[in-house]
Protein backbone atom coordinates (compact mmCIF):
# COMPACT_ATOMS: atom_id res chain seq x y z
CA UNK A 1 0.00 0.00 0.00
CA UNK A 2 1.24 3.48 -0.89
CA UNK A 3 0.89 5.28 2.42
CA UNK A 4 0.98 8.77 0.91
CA UNK A 5 -1.96 7.94 -1.35
CA UNK A 6 -3.76 6.39 1.60
CA UNK A 7 -3.20 9.49 3.73
CA UNK A 8 -4.47 11.83 1.00
CA UNK A 9 -7.48 9.65 0.15
CA UNK A 10 -9.77 11.31 2.70
CA UNK A 11 -9.76 8.28 5.01
CA UNK A 12 -8.19 10.28 7.86
CA UNK A 13 -10.88 12.97 7.72
CA UNK A 14 -13.50 10.22 7.56
CA UNK A 15 -12.00 8.47 10.60
CA UNK A 16 -11.63 11.55 12.79
CA UNK A 17 -15.14 12.75 12.02
CA UNK A 18 -16.54 9.30 12.85
CA UNK A 19 -17.71 8.45 9.35
CA UNK A 20 -15.74 5.26 8.66
CA UNK A 21 -17.26 1.84 8.25
CA UNK A 22 -16.14 -0.75 10.81
CA UNK A 23 -13.74 -2.29 8.26
CA UNK A 24 -12.19 1.04 7.34
CA UNK A 25 -11.79 1.93 11.00
CA UNK A 26 -10.13 -1.39 11.87
CA UNK A 27 -7.75 -1.14 8.95
CA UNK A 28 -6.68 2.39 9.80
CA UNK A 29 -6.19 1.62 13.49
CA UNK A 30 -4.03 -1.35 12.59
CA UNK A 31 -1.95 0.65 10.12
CA UNK A 32 -1.40 3.65 12.38
CA UNK A 33 0.48 1.51 14.88
CA UNK A 34 2.83 0.33 12.15
CA UNK A 35 3.42 3.61 10.39
CA UNK A 36 4.52 6.74 12.21
CA UNK A 37 3.83 9.03 9.25
CA UNK A 38 0.22 7.88 9.06
CA UNK A 39 -0.12 8.17 12.84
CA UNK A 40 1.18 11.72 12.73
CA UNK A 41 -1.11 12.65 9.84
CA UNK A 42 -4.09 11.45 11.87
CA UNK A 43 -3.02 13.44 14.92
CA UNK A 44 -2.45 16.52 12.77
CA UNK A 45 -5.97 16.39 11.40
CA UNK A 46 -7.42 15.79 14.85
CA UNK A 47 -5.70 18.94 16.07
CA UNK A 48 -6.80 20.85 12.96
CA UNK A 49 -10.40 19.68 13.40
CA UNK A 50 -10.39 20.51 17.10
CA UNK A 51 -9.03 24.00 16.40
CA UNK A 52 -11.66 24.49 13.70
CA UNK A 53 -14.46 23.53 16.09
CA UNK A 54 -13.04 25.61 18.95
CA UNK A 55 -12.83 28.67 16.71
CA UNK A 56 -16.52 28.44 15.92
CA UNK A 57 -17.63 27.63 19.44
CA UNK A 58 -20.49 29.50 20.97
CA UNK A 59 -21.64 29.30 24.52
CA UNK A 60 -24.91 28.18 26.06
CA UNK A 61 -26.59 30.50 28.54
CA UNK A 62 -25.31 31.03 32.07
CA UNK A 63 -28.32 29.19 33.51
CA UNK A 64 -27.42 26.14 31.45
CA UNK A 65 -23.84 26.37 32.71
CA UNK A 66 -25.02 26.43 36.31
CA UNK A 67 -27.44 23.56 35.78
CA UNK A 68 -24.91 21.29 34.09
CA UNK A 69 -22.09 22.08 36.51
CA UNK A 70 -24.43 21.34 39.41
CA UNK A 71 -25.44 18.01 37.88
CA UNK A 72 -21.80 17.05 37.36
CA UNK A 73 -20.97 18.03 40.92
CA UNK A 74 -23.87 15.89 42.16
CA UNK A 75 -22.52 12.93 40.20
CA UNK A 76 -19.13 13.37 41.83
CA UNK A 77 -20.42 13.63 45.37
CA UNK A 78 -19.50 10.46 47.26
CA UNK A 79 -22.37 8.52 48.80
CA UNK A 80 -21.91 8.21 52.56
CA UNK A 81 -23.40 5.20 54.23
CA UNK A 82 -25.75 5.97 57.13
CA UNK A 83 -25.24 2.51 58.56
CA UNK A 84 -22.82 3.11 61.45
CA UNK A 85 -21.92 -0.56 61.60
CA UNK A 86 -20.35 -0.51 58.19
CA UNK A 87 -16.82 0.58 57.51
CA UNK A 88 -16.17 4.15 56.36
CA UNK A 89 -17.11 4.64 52.73
CA UNK A 90 -14.06 5.37 50.69
CA UNK A 91 -13.93 6.53 47.11
CA UNK A 92 -12.19 4.16 44.75
CA UNK A 93 -9.01 5.99 43.83
CA UNK A 94 -7.95 5.19 40.28
CA UNK A 95 -5.05 7.61 40.62
CA UNK A 96 -3.59 5.56 43.47
CA UNK A 97 -4.16 2.35 41.57
CA UNK A 98 -2.56 3.87 38.45
CA UNK A 99 0.43 5.04 40.53
CA UNK A 100 0.86 1.59 42.06
CA UNK A 101 0.52 0.01 38.62
CA UNK A 102 3.17 2.39 37.24
CA UNK A 103 5.61 1.45 39.99
CA UNK A 104 4.93 -2.22 39.37
CA UNK A 105 5.27 -1.76 35.63
CA UNK A 106 8.56 0.02 36.06
CA UNK A 107 9.92 -2.67 38.42
CA UNK A 108 8.90 -5.38 35.94
CA UNK A 109 10.37 -3.33 33.11
CA UNK A 110 13.72 -2.88 34.88
CA UNK A 111 13.83 -6.56 35.76
CA UNK A 112 12.97 -7.43 32.18
CA UNK A 113 15.77 -5.21 30.90
CA UNK A 114 18.30 -6.93 33.07
CA UNK A 115 17.22 -10.49 32.39
CA UNK A 116 16.85 -9.67 28.73
CA UNK A 117 20.41 -8.42 28.70
CA UNK A 118 21.73 -11.53 30.40
CA UNK A 119 19.79 -13.67 27.98
CA UNK A 120 20.95 -11.85 24.89
CA UNK A 121 24.47 -11.01 25.95
CA UNK A 122 26.19 -13.26 23.45
CA UNK A 123 23.75 -12.28 20.72
CA UNK A 124 24.27 -8.59 21.45
CA UNK A 125 28.03 -8.95 21.36
CA UNK A 126 27.75 -10.63 18.02
CA UNK A 127 25.45 -7.87 16.76
CA UNK A 128 27.78 -5.18 18.03
CA UNK A 129 30.64 -6.78 16.19
CA UNK A 130 28.64 -7.07 12.99
CA UNK A 131 27.11 -3.60 13.09
CA UNK A 132 29.10 -0.60 14.00
CA UNK A 133 26.54 1.17 16.17
CA UNK A 134 28.34 4.08 17.81
CA UNK A 135 25.26 5.21 19.70
CA UNK A 136 24.69 1.91 21.44
CA UNK A 137 26.41 1.03 24.64
CA UNK A 138 29.24 -1.53 24.64
CA UNK A 139 28.08 -4.76 26.13
CA UNK A 140 30.56 -4.64 29.00
CA UNK A 141 28.83 -1.53 30.37
CA UNK A 142 25.48 -3.20 30.86
CA UNK A 143 26.39 -3.39 34.52
CA UNK A 144 24.84 0.09 34.80
CA UNK A 145 21.65 -1.61 35.83
CA UNK A 146 23.34 -2.49 39.11
CA UNK A 147 24.99 0.90 39.57
CA UNK A 148 23.56 2.70 42.62
CA UNK A 149 24.38 6.10 41.08
CA UNK A 150 22.00 5.51 38.22
CA UNK A 151 18.60 7.18 38.30
CA UNK A 152 16.05 5.18 36.32
CA UNK A 153 13.37 7.12 34.46
CA UNK A 154 10.36 5.29 33.03
CA UNK A 155 9.37 6.97 29.76
CA UNK A 156 5.71 6.36 29.06
CA UNK A 157 3.75 6.96 25.85
CA UNK A 158 1.69 10.14 25.82
CA UNK A 159 -1.85 10.27 24.45
CA UNK A 160 -2.02 8.42 21.15
CA UNK A 161 1.42 7.02 21.76
CA UNK A 162 0.30 5.08 24.84
CA UNK A 163 1.73 1.85 23.45
CA UNK A 164 5.25 3.34 23.28
CA UNK A 165 7.67 2.67 26.12
CA UNK A 166 11.34 3.36 26.92
CA UNK A 167 13.39 3.21 30.06
CA UNK A 168 16.21 5.67 30.60
CA UNK A 169 19.04 5.18 33.08
CA UNK A 170 20.64 8.51 33.94
CA UNK A 171 24.09 8.69 35.47
CA UNK A 172 24.02 12.08 37.14
CA UNK A 173 27.77 11.90 37.86
CA UNK A 174 28.86 11.59 34.27
CA UNK A 175 25.87 13.25 32.62
CA UNK A 176 25.35 10.19 30.47
CA UNK A 177 22.11 8.34 30.01
CA UNK A 178 21.32 4.95 28.57
CA UNK A 179 18.03 4.50 26.80
CA UNK A 180 16.39 1.13 26.29
CA UNK A 181 13.55 1.08 23.76
CA UNK A 182 10.73 -1.30 24.57
CA UNK A 183 8.42 -0.05 21.86
CA UNK A 184 8.55 2.86 19.45
CA UNK A 185 6.64 3.21 16.19
CA UNK A 186 9.23 3.21 13.35
CA UNK A 187 10.09 6.83 12.56
CA UNK A 188 10.55 6.22 8.82
CA UNK A 189 13.19 7.55 6.46
CA UNK A 190 12.61 11.26 6.95
CA UNK A 191 12.11 11.48 10.69
CA UNK A 192 13.88 10.49 13.86
CA UNK A 193 13.23 10.62 17.55
CA UNK A 194 14.78 13.35 19.69
CA UNK A 195 15.30 13.32 23.45
CA UNK A 196 14.74 16.53 25.43
CA UNK A 197 15.43 17.43 29.02
CA UNK A 198 13.30 19.90 30.92
CA UNK A 199 15.63 22.22 32.81
CA UNK A 200 13.98 25.03 34.75
CA UNK A 201 10.97 24.89 32.47
CA UNK A 202 13.04 24.98 29.25
CA UNK A 203 13.33 22.06 26.84
CA UNK A 204 16.97 21.34 26.04
CA UNK A 205 17.90 18.88 23.31
CA UNK A 206 19.89 15.93 24.63
CA UNK A 207 20.28 14.05 21.37
CA UNK A 208 18.75 11.83 18.77
CA UNK A 209 17.57 8.29 19.42
CA UNK A 210 18.00 5.67 16.74
CA UNK A 211 14.82 3.67 17.04
CA UNK A 212 16.28 0.86 14.95
CA UNK A 213 18.45 -0.17 17.90
CA UNK A 214 16.71 -2.75 20.04
CA UNK A 215 17.87 -4.95 22.92
CA UNK A 216 20.77 -2.61 23.53
CA UNK A 217 21.16 0.63 25.42
CA UNK A 218 21.46 3.80 23.39
CA UNK A 219 23.99 6.04 25.03
CA UNK A 220 23.44 9.79 25.15
CA UNK A 221 25.77 12.24 26.83
CA UNK A 222 25.49 15.78 28.12
CA UNK A 223 22.28 15.31 30.02
CA UNK A 224 21.87 18.65 31.82
CA UNK A 225 22.15 18.74 35.58
CA UNK A 226 18.90 19.45 37.34
CA UNK A 227 16.72 17.90 34.61
CA UNK A 228 13.29 17.31 36.07
CA UNK A 229 11.61 15.62 33.17
CA UNK A 230 12.47 14.08 29.85
CA UNK A 231 10.40 13.90 26.70
CA UNK A 232 10.84 12.28 23.31
CA UNK A 233 9.39 13.80 20.15
CA UNK A 234 9.54 12.84 16.52
CA UNK A 235 11.35 15.40 14.39
CA UNK A 236 12.65 15.75 10.86
CA UNK A 237 16.06 14.15 10.31
CA UNK A 238 18.80 16.08 12.05
CA UNK A 239 16.58 17.21 14.90
CA UNK A 240 14.88 20.43 15.84
CA UNK A 241 15.69 23.40 18.05
CA UNK A 242 12.32 23.26 19.79
CA UNK A 243 10.36 20.09 20.42
CA UNK A 244 7.32 19.21 18.33
CA UNK A 245 4.06 19.76 20.22
CA UNK A 246 3.20 16.10 19.78
CA UNK A 247 5.09 14.47 22.66
CA UNK A 248 5.64 10.74 22.14
CA UNK A 249 7.18 9.78 25.48
CA UNK A 250 7.43 11.49 28.82
CA UNK A 251 9.20 10.54 32.00
CA UNK A 252 9.61 12.39 35.27
CA UNK A 253 12.74 12.09 37.37
Amino acid at each position, binding site marked *: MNIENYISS*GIIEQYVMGLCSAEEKNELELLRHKDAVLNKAIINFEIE*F*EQRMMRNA*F*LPGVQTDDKILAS*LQALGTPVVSINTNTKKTTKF*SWVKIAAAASVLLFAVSAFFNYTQYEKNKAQAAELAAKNNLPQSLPVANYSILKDPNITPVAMMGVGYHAICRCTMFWDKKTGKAYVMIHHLVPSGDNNEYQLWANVNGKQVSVGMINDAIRDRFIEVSGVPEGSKEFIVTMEKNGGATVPDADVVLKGTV
Partner: protein
Amino acid sequence: MSQAITYTEDTLVAALRNHNNDAYKHLYVHYRGALYSIITQFIADTEIANDVLQDVFVAVWKNIDKYDETKGRLFTWLHTLTRNTTINTTRSKNYKSQQKNDTIEDFVYTLDLNDTHQQNINTIGLRKQVHLLREDYKNVLELSYYNGFTQEEIAKALDIPIGTVKTRLRNALIELRKQFV
Protein backbone atom coordinates in the same frame (compact mmCIF):
# COMPACT_ATOMS: atom_id res chain seq x y z
CA MET B 1 -6.51 31.28 48.14
CA SER B 2 -6.97 28.29 45.91
CA GLN B 3 -4.73 28.01 42.90
CA ALA B 4 -6.17 27.19 39.49
CA ILE B 5 -4.98 23.81 38.28
CA THR B 6 -3.57 23.68 34.78
CA TYR B 7 -4.12 20.43 32.95
CA THR B 8 -2.39 18.73 30.11
CA GLU B 9 -4.60 16.34 28.15
CA ASP B 10 -3.05 13.42 30.03
CA THR B 11 -3.51 14.85 33.51
CA LEU B 12 -7.04 15.95 32.63
CA VAL B 13 -8.01 12.47 31.46
CA ALA B 14 -6.47 10.92 34.58
CA ALA B 15 -8.43 13.33 36.78
CA LEU B 16 -11.63 12.70 34.83
CA ARG B 17 -11.18 8.98 35.32
CA ASN B 18 -10.86 9.68 39.02
CA HIS B 19 -14.15 11.62 38.81
CA ASN B 20 -12.48 14.73 40.12
CA ASN B 21 -14.98 17.60 40.30
CA ASP B 22 -12.46 20.26 39.39
CA ALA B 23 -11.47 18.31 36.28
CA TYR B 24 -15.10 18.08 35.14
CA LYS B 25 -15.52 21.79 35.69
CA HIS B 26 -12.41 22.42 33.62
CA LEU B 27 -13.66 20.06 30.91
CA TYR B 28 -17.03 21.80 30.83
CA VAL B 29 -15.64 25.32 30.74
CA HIS B 30 -13.08 24.46 28.09
CA TYR B 31 -15.20 22.38 25.70
CA ARG B 32 -18.82 23.43 26.22
CA GLY B 33 -18.76 26.02 23.45
CA ALA B 34 -17.34 23.69 20.80
CA LEU B 35 -19.68 20.86 21.77
CA TYR B 36 -22.69 23.16 21.97
CA SER B 37 -21.96 24.42 18.48
CA ILE B 38 -21.99 20.81 17.24
CA ILE B 39 -25.37 20.16 18.87
CA THR B 40 -26.95 23.32 17.51
CA GLN B 41 -26.01 22.32 14.01
CA PHE B 42 -28.54 19.53 14.41
CA ILE B 43 -31.09 20.97 16.81
CA ALA B 44 -32.70 24.38 16.55
CA ASP B 45 -34.63 24.26 19.82
CA THR B 46 -32.45 25.87 22.51
CA GLU B 47 -34.08 23.99 25.36
CA ILE B 48 -33.53 20.61 23.73
CA ALA B 49 -29.97 21.59 22.74
CA ASN B 50 -29.25 22.50 26.37
CA ASP B 51 -30.59 19.13 27.53
CA VAL B 52 -28.42 17.33 24.99
CA LEU B 53 -25.37 19.24 26.20
CA GLN B 54 -26.11 18.07 29.73
CA ASP B 55 -26.60 14.48 28.49
CA VAL B 56 -23.22 14.65 26.79
CA PHE B 57 -21.32 15.71 29.92
CA VAL B 58 -23.13 13.15 32.06
CA ALA B 59 -22.22 10.54 29.41
CA VAL B 60 -18.58 11.63 29.68
CA TRP B 61 -18.73 11.16 33.46
CA LYS B 62 -20.22 7.69 33.08
CA ASN B 63 -18.12 6.49 30.15
CA ILE B 64 -14.72 8.10 30.63
CA ASP B 65 -13.17 4.69 31.33
CA LYS B 66 -14.13 3.67 27.81
CA TYR B 67 -12.06 6.48 26.32
CA ASP B 68 -8.94 4.99 24.72
CA GLU B 69 -6.20 7.55 24.15
CA THR B 70 -4.42 5.25 21.69
CA LYS B 71 -7.35 5.72 19.30
CA GLY B 72 -7.76 9.45 19.40
CA ARG B 73 -7.46 12.74 21.18
CA LEU B 74 -9.92 13.62 23.90
CA PHE B 75 -11.74 16.13 21.69
CA THR B 76 -12.20 13.54 18.95
CA TRP B 77 -13.88 11.26 21.46
CA LEU B 78 -15.99 14.13 22.82
CA HIS B 79 -17.01 15.07 19.29
CA THR B 80 -18.12 11.51 18.50
CA LEU B 81 -19.99 11.24 21.80
CA THR B 82 -21.72 14.57 21.16
CA ARG B 83 -22.65 13.77 17.59
CA ASN B 84 -24.02 10.33 18.53
CA THR B 85 -25.99 11.69 21.48
CA THR B 86 -27.45 14.42 19.28
CA ILE B 87 -28.38 12.06 16.46
CA ASN B 88 -30.03 9.70 18.96
CA THR B 89 -32.05 12.64 20.24
CA THR B 90 -33.18 13.70 16.77
CA ARG B 91 -34.23 10.12 16.11
CA SER B 92 -36.31 9.86 19.25
CA LYS B 93 -40.08 9.89 18.98
CA ASN B 94 -40.36 12.79 21.43
CA TYR B 95 -38.08 14.96 19.35
CA LYS B 96 -39.82 14.14 16.08
CA SER B 97 -43.22 14.89 17.54
CA GLN B 98 -42.00 18.32 18.59
CA GLN B 99 -40.94 19.33 15.13
CA LYS B 100 -43.86 21.21 13.63
CA ASN B 101 -42.72 20.93 10.06
CA ASP B 102 -41.38 17.45 10.32
CA THR B 103 -43.31 15.28 7.91
CA ILE B 104 -40.77 12.53 7.61
CA GLU B 105 -42.56 9.21 7.95
CA ASP B 106 -39.62 6.94 7.51
CA PHE B 107 -36.56 8.75 8.79
CA VAL B 108 -34.04 6.37 7.33
CA TYR B 109 -35.01 6.28 3.70
CA THR B 110 -37.14 9.27 2.87
CA LEU B 111 -35.17 12.15 4.32
CA ASP B 112 -35.78 15.52 2.72
CA LEU B 113 -32.39 17.18 2.58
CA ASN B 114 -34.00 20.61 2.52
CA ASP B 115 -36.19 19.92 5.53
CA THR B 116 -37.58 23.27 6.64
CA HIS B 117 -36.86 22.99 10.35
CA GLN B 118 -33.20 22.69 9.55
CA GLN B 119 -33.18 26.14 8.02
CA ASN B 120 -33.37 27.63 11.50
CA ILE B 121 -30.39 25.91 12.99
CA ASN B 122 -26.95 27.34 13.51
CA THR B 123 -25.49 27.56 10.06
CA ILE B 124 -22.52 29.68 11.06
CA GLY B 125 -20.39 26.63 11.64
CA LEU B 126 -19.44 23.44 9.90
CA ARG B 127 -22.82 22.90 8.30
CA LYS B 128 -22.59 26.14 6.39
CA GLN B 129 -19.33 24.94 4.94
CA VAL B 130 -20.95 21.63 4.04
CA HIS B 131 -23.69 23.52 2.22
CA LEU B 132 -21.09 25.34 0.14
CA LEU B 133 -19.94 22.05 -1.36
CA ARG B 134 -21.25 20.79 -4.67
CA GLU B 135 -24.63 19.10 -4.48
CA ASP B 136 -23.57 15.44 -4.59
CA TYR B 137 -20.89 15.98 -1.92
CA LYS B 138 -23.29 17.96 0.26
CA ASN B 139 -25.90 15.20 0.07
CA VAL B 140 -23.63 12.37 1.20
CA LEU B 141 -22.24 14.50 4.05
CA GLU B 142 -25.72 15.50 5.17
CA LEU B 143 -26.80 11.87 5.30
CA SER B 144 -23.57 10.59 6.78
CA TYR B 145 -22.46 13.25 9.28
CA TYR B 146 -25.76 14.90 10.20
CA ASN B 147 -28.08 11.93 10.01
CA GLY B 148 -25.78 9.08 10.99
CA PHE B 149 -26.51 6.97 7.93
CA THR B 150 -24.18 4.08 7.22
CA GLN B 151 -22.61 3.93 3.78
CA GLU B 152 -25.04 1.13 2.86
CA GLU B 153 -28.00 3.27 3.94
CA ILE B 154 -26.74 6.20 1.88
CA ALA B 155 -26.33 3.94 -1.17
CA LYS B 156 -29.91 2.78 -0.74
CA ALA B 157 -31.30 6.25 -0.05
CA LEU B 158 -29.61 7.85 -3.05
CA ASP B 159 -29.81 4.73 -5.22
CA ILE B 160 -26.13 4.74 -6.08
CA PRO B 161 -23.43 2.06 -5.72
CA ILE B 162 -21.64 1.89 -2.37
CA GLY B 163 -18.32 2.49 -4.12
CA THR B 164 -19.68 5.83 -5.34
CA VAL B 165 -20.77 6.68 -1.79
CA LYS B 166 -17.25 6.00 -0.49
CA THR B 167 -15.65 8.09 -3.23
CA ARG B 168 -18.05 11.02 -2.80
CA LEU B 169 -17.72 10.96 0.97
CA ARG B 170 -13.95 11.04 0.94
CA ASN B 171 -13.80 13.70 -1.78
CA ALA B 172 -16.38 15.76 0.10
CA LEU B 173 -14.27 15.61 3.26
CA ILE B 174 -11.11 16.58 1.38
CA GLU B 175 -12.96 19.60 -0.04
CA LEU B 176 -14.41 20.44 3.36
CA ARG B 177 -10.98 20.34 4.99
CA LYS B 178 -9.70 22.92 2.51
CA GLN B 179 -12.24 25.33 3.98
CA PHE B 180 -10.93 24.83 7.51
CA VAL B 181 -7.93 27.04 6.89
